[in-house]
């Protein structure tokens, strides 16, 4: 086992709203090792982005961390009793790229000025040295003609190019962990592939760990070592990518994989998982997936615990059954 960098232990995030307390994340535990890529997948509203924000200390009112801790190499960053996280971890050791590259860059500053700011803050480089380093960064993310591009403004860049700039800024501080929150959702498929290739390349060059948040299983299969599947604010299954795609144990994971469109099966209709995720205002007492699960039985009414399996862990008392085949029959 490689060295553990980030460790999330029983994280709870709640939102106080006028309608009641919404429990967005309910006991998530995760670890990320050095040089590892972890995929965090789940449908909209399953709590993946909130988990990422909690890791970066970005939870603000109406949200709050209601339990658990996030530790970086053993140092607590977030959680009970942590008043102020140690400096120079967020933004330096851990950086983040966001979904929308259109709004994450300052429209009034040149790309060069913004990159040099990051370089100056984190590496202490100034003047020509900072500029050279900024140009190197642009080169590293595959932007040609870096010297000329440095003097351009964000509106002169396309969406894919801007996302590359965001990645360049994120790796400017030579971080050890990069959190990518749906980095390719706003981009078209060809650019998407390029960006993912770039992330994989940077990872092998810099020994970076990546947490990739997405709802696209294809991306996970292509890039990640391990996956954690989230549903209704909890992790329902984790494991190595290969085995999980081969033999998904949780009925929800099985349903997700079953509903992924395949190019070689274009004559079949897409199969969806019927129903909708539960509201988290009053979270279900037992398995959150129970109402949509084809193989739910009586014991599904009790809370499901993440139990280790051969390659990962799964939170389902009916794990391993080929749920959807049984359900269809």
């Amino acid at each position, binding site marked *: 086992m490689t060295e553990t960098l980030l460790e999330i232990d029983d994280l709870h995030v709640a*939102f*106080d*709203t*006028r309608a009641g307390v919404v429990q967005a994340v309910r006991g998530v535990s995760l670890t990320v090792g050095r040089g590892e890529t972890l995929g965090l997948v789940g449908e909209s509203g399953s709590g993946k982005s909130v988990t990422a924000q909690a890791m970066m200390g970005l939870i603000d*009112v*109406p*949200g*709050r961390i209601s339990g658990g801790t996030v530790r970086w190499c053993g140092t607590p960053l977030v959680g009970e009793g942590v008043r102020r996280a140690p400096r120079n971890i967020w933004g330096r050791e851990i950086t983040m790229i966001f979904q929308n590259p259109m709004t994450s860059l300052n429209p009034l500053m040149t790309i060069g000025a913004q990159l040099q700011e990051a370089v100056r803050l984190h590496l202490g480089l100034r003047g020509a040295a900072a500029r050279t380093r900024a140009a190197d960064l642009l080169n590293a993310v595959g932007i040609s003609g870096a010297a000329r591009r440095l003097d351009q403004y964000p509106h002169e860049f396309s969406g894919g190019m801007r996302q590359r700039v965001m990645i360049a800024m994120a790796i400017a501080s030579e971080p050890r962990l990069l959190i990518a929150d749906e980095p390719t959702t706003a981009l078209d498929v060809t650019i998407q592939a390029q960006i993912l290739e770039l992330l994989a390349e940077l990872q092998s060059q810099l020994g970076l760990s990546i947490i990739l948040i997405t709802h696209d299983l294809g991306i996970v299969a292509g890039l990640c070592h391990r996956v954690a599947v989230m549903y209704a604010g909890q992790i329902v299954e984790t494991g190595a990518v290969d085995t999980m795609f081969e033999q998904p144990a949780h009925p929800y994971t099985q349903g997700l994989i079953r509903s992924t469109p395949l190019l070689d099966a274009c004559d079949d209709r897409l199969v969806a998982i019927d129903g909708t995720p539960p509201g988290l205002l009053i979270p279900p007492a037992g398995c959150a997936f129970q109402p949509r699960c084809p193989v739910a039985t009586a014991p599904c009414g009790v809370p499901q615990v993440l139990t280790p399996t051969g390659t990962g862990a799964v939170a389902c008392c009916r794990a391993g059954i080929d749920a959807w085949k049984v359900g269809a029959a």
Partner: protein
Amino acid sequence: MGLPMMSFRPLRSFLSELWQDKAAAIGFAVMVLIVLMAVFAPVLAPEDPATQSLLQRLKPPVWDARGSWDHLLGTDNLGRDVLSRIIWGARTTLTIGIVTCVIAAMIGTTLGLWAGFMGGRTDSVLMRLVDIQVSFPGILLILLVVGVLGPGVWTLIAVLSVTNWMVYARLVRGIVSSTRQMPYVEAAEVIGCRPSRVIFVHLLPNLVSPLLTLLILEFTNIVLAEAAVSFLGFGVQPPDTSWGLDVASGRDYLFIAWWLVTFPGLAIVVTVLSINLFANWLRVTSDPEEREKRFARTIAAKRRRRRAT
């Protein structure tokens, strides 16, 4: 009588939400008290605000050694009761302040919306109109109009409205022309909303919070402008009275009778402060996202207090 039953519940939920924010609740209560004071001035005022008594000149407030219970807040240079003048002055000051602000805001918002929404030549023409009006010295226009029409409360309201609408027009025009580019406004146009619907449903709600803020700031300005004009003899005419007029005329006695300026001045401060506290709350309440955040903050504060005890 089914109507009161139906209108009672929103009122109760309004009050209970207001109660969560103590400062705003106090502001609202003081505001209501001041309005009631103005409405019931004839009942409340201990004396006629215009009755002069040269024997009772420049009496200090009751807690001063030379003060007496006859005049709680003392008397002015003509022996008029300061407390009664403040109670009566609330009528004029509030009327002029509120009515002027509302009229000026209506003129300014309408023209600003029109300019921002139409853009192009309409925008240029209307905004140049604003520029001209802004560059024209306001006090000169006021003196000119009052000189022609004769002084009085309603002339003052008309004139102050005409000289104070430009700031609203500029603010509204700026917000409207930027909000107009927002995808949700374009989407509303694409699905076939008529301009009136776009303006009233999609643009106007965005203006609520900046307009509220500006209205409060302008209210103070209007109160002071009224004082200045009254001081020059072109505004409120004795025996009528207003807070501004009292502050302005008490200035001559600042060193021998501090209470002449202090109490009407305090009345202005308290009024503006209470409106401010309430308007701040109202602004947050009109923004669904901010409203949720405020709710979460009060919950967090309660939780901290419970943990501390």
